[in-house]
C-alpha cells in the first residue's frame, strides 16, 4: 500500500520541477518567485507522501517547518522591492 503514495511523490516532484522552467524564463522576478513557491508546496507534499506511509514521524515535523517558512522568501522579496510601503489601506 505504499506504491501509490510513492508514485504520487515522484509525480508531484517531477511536475514542480517542470514548473521551475518558469524560473528560467521569468520574465519578472515575481514569476520566478512563484515557481519556487510551487516547488516548496510540492516538496511538502512529496515529503509527506513518502514519510507518512513508511511511519517516519519526523517527516511531519520537517513538513511543518517548511510550511511555516513557506511564505518567508516571498515576504522578504515584497519588503525589499518596496511593494509594501505605499500600500493603499
Amino acid at each position, binding site marked *: 500500500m505504499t506504491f501509490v503514495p510513492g508514485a504520487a*511523490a*515522484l509525480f508531484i516532484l517531477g511536475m514542480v520541477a517542470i514548473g521551475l522552467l518558469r524560473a528560467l524564463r521569468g520574465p519578472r522576478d515575481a514569476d520566478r518567485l512563484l515557481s519556487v513557491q510551487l516547488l516548496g508546496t510540492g516538496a511538502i507534499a512529496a515529503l509527506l507522501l513518502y514519510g507518512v506511509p513508511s511511519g517516519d514521524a519526523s517527516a511531519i515535523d520537517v513538513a511543518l517547518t517548511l510550511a511555516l517558512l513557506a511564505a518567508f522568501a516571498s515576504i522578504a522579496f*515584497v519588503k525589499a522591492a518596496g511593494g*509594501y510601503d505605499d500600500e493603499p489601506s
Partner: protein
Amino acid sequence: MIDALNAGIALLLLALGAYAVMAKDVFAALVGYIAYGLLLTLAWMQLRGPDVALTEAAIGGGLTGAMLIAAATRLRDRDAAARAPMPGIGARVLAATLSAVVASAVAWSVASLPEPAATLAPQTLAAMPALEVGNPVTAVLLGFRALDTLLEAIVVVLALIGVWSLAPDKAWGGRLGRLQHAQPDGMLAYAARILAPIGIVIGMYIFWIGADLPGGKFQGATLLAAMWLLVWMAGLTDAPAVDRRWLRAMLVAGPLAFVAIGVFGAVQAGAFLAYPAGLAKPLIIVIEIALMPTLTLVLALVLVGPPLREPER
C-alpha cells in the same frame, strides 16, 4: 521507486546548483539557489538524517532565501559589479578545467572509501544510556562532541559581533538595522500576527522533542528567529539598540553557562565538559535552555544587520 526518487532528487540538485552558479540574471540565480535549498531538505530525508533535514528546512528553506533576496533587491540595477565583464574565454576554460579536476578528485576519493564503512554509531549507542537522551544526534552534540557545540556557539556570537562592527561611528549605540515601514493593519502585519504565535509554539515543540526525537535547539532557535524577523519586517516591533545590557547579557549567557558547566565537570568528574554520573540529563537540559536565547538572538540579528540609526537621546 526509492532509486528513482533518489536519482531524481540528486539530478535536480545538480541542475539547480548549476543554475544558481551559471544563470545570467542575479535574481534568477538566487531563486535557483532557494529551490536548491528546498531540495536539499528532501535529500537529507533520503539520506536518513532527519535532524539535518530539519536544520536545512529552517535555515535553507527560510532564512537564507530571505537574506539573499533582500540583499539582491537592494543591490539591483545600481550595482556596477553585476555588469562587469566575465573573464575571457581562455580564463573560463582554465577555471572549468581546474574545477573538473577538483570534482574528479573528490569523486575518486569517495569511490575509494574503505569497506566496510567506518562508523561510530555502535559506540554512540553504547554510551547513550549514560546520557539519558534518546536522540543519538543530541547525544553527540551535547555528549561526546560537546566541545564542538560550545565552540560553535561562540563562533556564531563572533559572527554577530563582526556584523555589528560594520556600524558607522555615529550610529554606534543606536538601534539595529533600518526602520521598517509598515502599516499596523496591513497584510504583512496580519500575517505576522497569525503566523508568529503558531511558529513560536512549533519552534518550542521542535526544541523540546530534541532530547529524544529529531529536533533540538538549533532548529527550534531558527524557527523562533524567523518568527521574530517576521514580526520585525511587519513593523510590529523594532530592533533593540546595540548597547542594551539585556541584549548583551542574553548573547553571552548561553556560551557562559556552557563553559561554567564544563568547568563544573572538570572539578567534579575530572575532565572539561564531563558530566558527573547521574547529572548528565539535567546538565544537558540546562545547556540547551541556556543556548536557546543566544542562538535565537544571533540568528535573527545577523539578518537585521549593524546599527544604522543614530542613538536616541
